[in-house]
């Protein structure tokens, strides 16, 4: 209840998109456009070994032969892939560095965003408050990763992908592209060719990661895309909770964000992956600008009894195309997908999940809450499949859509394939309109219209919000409120 109050006050004090500022930071760019030389440029900038460059060039060759997918329920003008920068980095030398060496202007950006980059600042908080380590990715590069030493003491590797390629090539070689193959899809393939940075996590057997890990993605440069690549490996019996957050300045042109996230869990391991996505959604009236968020996220539950849980709060981007999925390979492994997708203004979202049951007695659970307001369109697309060997597979899916106003749309597109007779799939779906009766009821009790909408929406998304780590649940709740500002009336 305190959070609701906070939400209300927060909203009153905020502009529509509070992360829309641009920072004037000296940057290195690759020449505009995309060709094999650009791929070589990126690889060289990062001092990569030959095997990595070869991998990229192979991906680039394959990408040239592919076509952009058109099955999603989203509309946008053709992207000119030659009209973008594929590498933008703050002007500094590559390599690990201490926080004191990071450009103070960049530190200022993170301060403005409320992301703690100084370990002592995190530590200075309330006693007993959960701590979290941050990898800060600014445009194409990771600028700093906190708490690395403390994590290393228990054997957890948490660093930027560039560093992992240099320092832990055996792990990267073994796992990179093993969950999302190079040519899996158009955007993933593009990412494989030009990915710039991202986070790498390895949790050794039996280790429970002592703190939350998080990566904070910020697009700052103009006309540039962000192509990050994240790889998380949870070895036998380990556990890690990871959160990513994203923001970008308000710009009139569309910017492409094509990320790939790969998760691997071994026997009895668990990864909890949460996303709070707040990319600039574009102008609410004209639809101009905003991020194209075309992301491939997939988990491979390789080990028996392993578990992956995806939680996402998607409020930003002009277009979202994203299906965090689980391949349930290990016997008795389980996958969860909890999603809140909010579209307002002219936003379009086509998002959902895939639960691929390969192993026996695998379980999955999908809770999706879509909220559409303004003139937006919100589609849930989900696949649940059980292969012949996946005897005893179980899935429960619940898809709820909430419509606010009369000009928005919600769609639910479930695909269900059971290829054995011993699987049990349940699917429930509802679509409701935020009712004027409910609004009036809440207002009669003293809430303003905005407060009433927030309270009702918070009630609608509660099942998912409670899956987020506490710290972020409060943030997410605020974000939900801000995203729906002015959606009624």
């Amino acid at each position: 209840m305190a959070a609701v109050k906070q939400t209300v006050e927060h909203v009153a004090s905020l502009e529509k998109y509070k992360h829309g500022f641009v920072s004037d930071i000296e940057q290195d760019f690759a020449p505009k456009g995309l060709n094999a030389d650009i791929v070589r440029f990126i690889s060289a900038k990062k001092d990569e070994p030959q095997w990595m460059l070869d991998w990229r060039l192979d991906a680039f060759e394959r990408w040239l032969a592919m076509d952009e997918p058109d099955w999603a329920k989203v509309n946008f003008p053709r992207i000119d892939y030659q009209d973008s920068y594929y590498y933008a980095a703050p002007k500094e030398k590559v390599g690990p560095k201490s926080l004191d060496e990071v450009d103070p202007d960049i530190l200022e950006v993170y301060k403005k965003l409320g992301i703690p980059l100084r370990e002592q600042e995190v530590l200075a908080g309330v006693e007993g408050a959960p701590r979290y380590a941050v990898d800060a990715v600014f445009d194409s590069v990771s600028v700093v990763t906190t708490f690395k030493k403390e994590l290393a003491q228990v054997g957890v590797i948490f660093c930027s992908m560039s560093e992992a390629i240099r320092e832990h090539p055996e792990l990267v070689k073994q796992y990179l592209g093993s969950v999302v193959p190079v040519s899996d899809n158009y955007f993933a393939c593009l990412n494989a060719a030009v990915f710039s940075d991202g986070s790498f996590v390895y949790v050794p057997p039996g280790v429970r990661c002592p703190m939350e890990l998080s990566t904070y993605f910020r697009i700052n440069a103009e006309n540039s895309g962000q192509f990050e690549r994240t790889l998380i490996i949870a070895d036998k019996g380990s556990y890690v909770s990871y959160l990513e957050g994203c923001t970008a300045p308000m710009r009139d042109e569309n910017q492409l964000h094509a990320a790939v996230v790969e998760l691997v869990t071994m026997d009895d391991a668990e990864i909890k992956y949460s996303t709070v996505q707040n990319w600039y959604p574009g102008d609410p009236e004209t639809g101009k600008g905003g991020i194209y968020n075309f992301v491939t996220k997939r988990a491979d539950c390789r080990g028996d009894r392993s578990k992956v849980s995806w939680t996402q709060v998607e409020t930003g981007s002009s277009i979202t195309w994203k299906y965090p999925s689980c391949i349930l390979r290990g016997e008795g492994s389980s996958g969860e997908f909890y999603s809140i997708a909010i579209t307002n203004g002219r936003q379009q979202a086509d998002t959902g999940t895939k639960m691929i049951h390969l192993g026996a007695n695998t379980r999955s659970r999908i809770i999706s809450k879509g909220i559409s307001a303004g003139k937006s369109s919100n589609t849930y697309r989900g696949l649940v499949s059980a292969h012949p060997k996946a005897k005893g597979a179980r899935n429960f899916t619940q898809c709820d859509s909430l419509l606010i106003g009369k000009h928005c749309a919600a769609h639910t597109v479930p695909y269900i394939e059971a290829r054995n007779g011993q699987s049990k799939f349940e699917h429930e779906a509802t679509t409701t309109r935020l009712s004027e009766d409910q609004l009036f009821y809440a207002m009669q009790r003293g809430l303003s219209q905005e407060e009433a909408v927030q309270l009702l929406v918070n009630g609608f998304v509660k099942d998912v919000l409670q899956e987020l780590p506490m710290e972020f649940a409060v943030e997410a709740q605020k974000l939900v409120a801000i995203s729906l500002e002015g959606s009624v009336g």
Partner: protein
Amino acid sequence: MLSISNLHAAVEGKEILKGLTLDVPAGEVHAIMGPNGAGKSTLSYVLTGRQGYEITGGGTTLDGEDLLALEPNERAARGVFLSFQYPLEIPGVPALTFIRTALNAQKKARGEPEITAPAFLKLAREKAALLKIDFDMLKRALNVGFSGGEKKRMEIFQMAMLSPRFLILDETDSGLDIDALRIVSEGVNALRSPDRAMLVITHYQRLLDYIKPDRVHVLAGGRIVASGGPELALELERDGYDRYARAA
């Protein structure tokens, strides 16, 4: 307290209230009775500011202030409370969360400090005991899966928690068995005070055995067509509304 003068109101262009005049002074309980379609619920919605009810003439003041110019939440902050005939379900929002949010919104609007969590819980336990409401029920989503009687009891609980000054009860007795009716009535009677006033809208005289009105009015054809003491309710129970319906 509340003063309604020559009030005309229309829904979708159709006039429902046709010159309603009524004064409810502080400290009094007034009952509004009348046949179906007389405009009883319309009156409660007009007083609380529901959308879609167009004021076509006349006016209403609460303590001299133009009530009809205010938003529904502003009226609530000034102490106007409606116990709904059909309370709404609020999925995912626990009853206590809902009520505390509402109470603090009202307090904020009045420039009062917010209630602290311990003080709120203490108040809630006290009022729940009074209305024989299981405290665990207050942790469930408001009205979701509640029986008709439970919903009505929850309305009175909200009323007790928000401590309004002008109370409108719209068919509060419908859906209540005799025990629940007694408990609810006791809750309402506990709120009677010299600085509060109530408007009890009911179809049947039964409720008035428990909540004794100071005045009874007959609403028919969008107007008050007769007024009297408590005996008028008994007369209506005996003779029906026919006479008044014809008069309207």
